[in-house]
């Protein structure tokens, strides 16, 4: 995927879900700096539908 050249970047990432289906404290998972940002909201939604994960949508203004 290509990164949009846009000073107002919209980042979309998906959470890693914890292993337990019970709504208990979900431990953080070490990503080691590797976050697969998706730069298209529609693409992010499609991924969310496919894998059942929620979306973390970030608007960041690079002034």
């Amino acid at each position, binding site marked *: 995927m290509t990164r949009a050249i846009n*000073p*107002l970047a919209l980042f979309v990432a998906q959470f890693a879900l914890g292993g337990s289906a019970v709504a208990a404290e979900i431990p953080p998972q070490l990503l080691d700096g590797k976050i697969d940002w998706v730069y298209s909201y529609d693409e992010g939604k499609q991924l969310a539908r496919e894998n059942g994960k929620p979306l*973390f949508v970030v*608007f*960041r203004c690079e*002034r």
Partner: protein
Amino acid sequence: MNEVNINLFQFEYDLTWMAFFMDAEDQTYTRYGGREDADAESHLNKASLMHTMQEALRLHLAGKVQHVNRYQATGKPMHTPEDIPTMAAMLARRDVKCIHCHDVKVAELRHRWTLGEFTRDMVFTYPVPSAIGLQMNADRQNQVEAVAQQSPAATAGVRMGDVVLSADGQRIVTFADFSRVLELTPPESELVLELRRGQQLIPVTLELTGQWRRSQDPSWRESLHIAGPNTGLGGKPLSTRERRALGIAPDALALSVNFIWGAHTKQAGVRRGDVIIAIDGQRHDMTGRQLHAYCMLNKDWGDQVPVVLLRDGKEKKLTITFPAKPPWQ
């Protein structure tokens, strides 16, 4: 913000960072972002972001999106920044056609101005909880850290330590969730909060009236320039030592002019190196942005404003005459 659906992603466009936790069907679990006037990162920190992520995951597992109510943007119809009538003219003046967050609000406000509908109150979007007397904890953002005396929240009986579960029925997890509710709360209204106090659930009703939506220091807002004219100069407050050398009190206005871009400013005779010690009779300490904000909110295009400055150790009085109309007209 190019081609972003701003009917879906509605937020304080004067911000430089904002996040939404959502499902795959355009529905929101919670928001994260926002700021107090004094500090851009007042409610942005690792602890609160991690807590919000935990909550978002919990809500996702439980299938608890926000209700589709007036606080939940549906995204329909699709509306992008490019659809704002004044945006085309803004972009035409740029080599790079990228639309920033604040451009969305600026374009909308300019459109309102063109229609003769603009009021200065329109700059004060997304009020924060402190506007109604609630200082929210920076880490656990739905927990009350302090209640301002004689505020609507204090009058209603909110206490330090209370957890705000909902405002007008809208689930509150974060500072940004609360700000979203306040954005759509009319100036004269009653706002019902559901609080958790220990093991008790307590509803309280806040009576809101007057200018609570106006924050004290909106100088950080990029969109503020729509509100009125600015002084056309940049300046830096003098240091303590510099003030002492000039006999200026620590809490007094002492802005050293380091840049002039306004033709009206040059015409008034302001020079680089001048120290502004009063403007329109105001002598309290201000940053350069606060100086602009004062004029933008209190003066109109074509007005004259008296300025007192120090030049070579001597007081000098000038008058700045603002342009008759905004540059975009």
